[in-house]
């Protein structure tokens, strides 16, 4: 019973070693020319100054929301892709219906300006 876990331990060990080595290796080998921008937490993001209750724009929320919804919908395409041949044209028609429904949602979102940044 215990023996069967040895490969898992081995993998954990390798993962830890790989992580430690690769991070330190890049630190050793890479050129170090720091400047202020480079030291900021998110180099091309929002400056994380002020309190943790910082109010950020609701636009981020719109992006996150679209992401969750469309991300999850893709889940339904994987089974179809795996069984593509077996399902044949019926599967194709059914998935087309699904994609049309998604597209309607997407057009609605686009036209309502939910994806416009300014």
């Amino acid at each position, binding site marked *: 019973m215990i023996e069967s876990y040895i490969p898992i331990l081995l993998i954990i060990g390798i993962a830890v070693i790989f992580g430690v080595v690769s991070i330190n290796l890049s630190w050793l080998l890479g050129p170090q020319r720091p400047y202020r921008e480079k030291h900021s937490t998110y180099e091309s993001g929002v400056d994380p100054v002020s309190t943790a209750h910082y109010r950020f724009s609701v636009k981020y*929320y719109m992006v996150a929301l679209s992401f969750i919804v469309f991300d*999850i*919908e893709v889940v339904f395409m994987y089974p179809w892709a795996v069984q593509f041949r077996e399902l044949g044209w019926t599967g194709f028609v059914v998935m087309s219906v699904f994609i049309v429904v998604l597209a309607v949602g997407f057009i609605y979102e686009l036209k309502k300006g939910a994806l416009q940044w300014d």
Partner: protein
Amino acid sequence: MVPIHYYLILSAVMFITGVVGVLTRRNAIIIFMCIELMLNSVNLTFVAFSAYLGNETGQMFVFFIMAVAAAEAAVGLAIVIALFRNRQTVNINDVNILRW
């Protein structure tokens, strides 16, 4: 192979943790996360039964639960934002205009 009971007990514990969280926490976001925990424990139940019975219906059901949970998250967080803009709070004890 891990026996099915273990999965079922784990998912029941997760489910009850979620229920207790919903009933005791006062922050709307945390309550919502507890509800997500409940739904995920249900996913675990379905996957465990599906593997045990050797039948794919359970896994299919999990996809639908995930999709529904995503839709619920989108709508729920929007409602929380609308409420926050009106009240500057998401504590459900402060949300108490409607009383008899």
